[in-house]
């Protein structure tokens, strides 16, 4: 796919790019629909419940029905809300979430954009969603929404710092910010993938990533029992669906990013398993991380806001910086 990007832009090529964009969008929407279904099923199974099982065979159409319901609902805008920003916020949240998917390489040949600074692109764009969440909370003109928006901004900014610093070790080892190069440079055996040499960075990354996703145990922005629903209290119908969609698209993005950065991307765990296509390995690792996110949601309780900030700034940040330091010392002493 990469060679198309170097050709001159003709109407045919533009149409091709557009079609690929639409295909990715369809895949992502399919993922979100069934991720929600499996999340409910998995959590139900872990809590000795059955989960959704009424709509369609084994409840498979439950999420489809939910989405249809959301799209047909009345779209309410509070009278005292800031109308323009209230309408802008869900779109502003979703656009960066979808845009970051452009840099993720699925296999050696299957990727959308090959940017030299792919990792930086991901981090930079995902920051814009925070603005949208704050704006959504503020423009609703509702105390709970405002509180949720404030919490969300504080949390996402605090955890973006350790998230970025934890991947610096990986960048130092591969000497590139290009996600394709990073995935490509990880070895053939599974212990040569970045998650073992960079185990400190990996742990910090996973914790910070869960927090960036606003998921349990860090789901304070939408803590139902305290804030009703957080920043999207006033949203209904398809605007609410957009915020929901953003969250699950980020689940997709983070799972894919973790796979690429730490779990060897499309590499097989053992060289003799190379005959299995790379995309299968990518999907297996990707699904495991998505399952892991559901698993911790079913297992862990929510933490308090002061514990959250303490964990981010006093534990994760120093540990991430220590990891950068250790990696630098190791590279200087043993590699050069």
């Amino acid at each position, binding site marked *: 796919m990469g060679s198309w990007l170097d050709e*001159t*832009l003709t109407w045919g090529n533009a149409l091709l790019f557009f079609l690929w964009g639409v295909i990715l969008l369809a895949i992502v929407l399919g993922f979100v629909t069934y991720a929600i279904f499996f999340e409910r099923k998995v959590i139900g199974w872990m809590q000795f419940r059955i989960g959704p099982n009424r709509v369609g065979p084994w409840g498979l159409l439950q999420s489809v029905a939910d989405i249809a319901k959301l799209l047909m609902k009345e779209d309410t805008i509070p009278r005292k809300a*800031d109308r*323009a*920003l209230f309408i*802008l916020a869900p779109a502003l949240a979703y656009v960066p979430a979808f845009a970051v998917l452009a840099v993720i390489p699925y296999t050696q040949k299957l990727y959308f954009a090959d*940017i*030299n*600074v792919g990792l*930086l*692109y991901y*981090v*930079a*764009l995902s*920051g*814009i969603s*925070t*603005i949208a969440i*704050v*704006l959504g909370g*503020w*423009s609703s*003109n509702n105390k709970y929404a*405002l509180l949720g*928006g*404030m919490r969300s*901004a504080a949390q996402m*900014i605090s955890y973006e710092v350790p998230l970025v610093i934890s991947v610096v070790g990986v960048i130092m080892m591969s000497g*590139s*910010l290009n996600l394709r190069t990073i995935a490509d440079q990880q070895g053939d055996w599974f212990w040569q993938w970045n998650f073992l040499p960079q185990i400190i960075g990996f742990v910090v990354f996973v914790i910070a990533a869960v927090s960036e996703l606003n998921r349990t145990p860090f789901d304070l922005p939408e803590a139902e029992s305290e804030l009703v629903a957080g920043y999207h209290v006033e949203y209904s119908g398809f605007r609410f669906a957009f915020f929901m969609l953003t969250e699950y698209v980020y689940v997709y993005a983070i799972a894919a990013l973790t796979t690429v950065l730490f779990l060897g991307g499309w590499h097989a765990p053992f060289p003799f398993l190379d005959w299995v296509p790379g995309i299968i390995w990518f999907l297996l690792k990707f699904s495991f991380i998505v399952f892991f996110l559901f698993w911790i949601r079913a297992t862990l309780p929510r933490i308090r806001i002061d514990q959250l900030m303490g964990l981010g700034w006093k534990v994760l940040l120093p540990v991430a910086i220590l990891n950068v330091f250790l990696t630098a010392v190791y590279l200087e002493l043993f590699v050069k």
Partner: protein
Amino acid sequence: MFNVNFTGEFVAFFIFSVLIISGAVLMVSFTKVVHMVVSLAAVFIGIAGMFVLLQAEFLAFVQVLIYAGAVSILMIFGIMMTKHQDAEADRSRPLHETLTAIGALALFGILFYAIRQSEFPEPEQPLSQATDNTMEIGKLLFTNYVVPFELVSVLLTVAFIGAIVLAKKEAD
């Protein structure tokens, strides 16, 4: 003077220019502060797009990360504490406005003249477009510009400690 060919780059340049200019104009003309910050963020994103067109990807995404992300959120965070329906009262001051308009036009004239007059010499060793400009920036920062770089980091540390001291005083 206006012999441009319509390439993809020109279209992108046009879109980003519109984004920057309209964002800047709206920033001045909006009355609610939060709306101003949002249009400012649009300007920042447009400038990042310009950097991409100039093949400075690193600079572009750092621009998005720092300005469009961090700075805008910081401003929104501060403004969110203010009153919701607060709009700036508009008083009409004709003399003041006329003088401002003349000043702005004069500034535009000077800038336009300067840009039209100046020549951009070719650099002695042109950077090839294929090089990794993140690596080039890093090399320059840690060789030729290491002293200014360290001074900036000291300055930031001083600002950081200052902020902590101020917050501590408030808390006690």
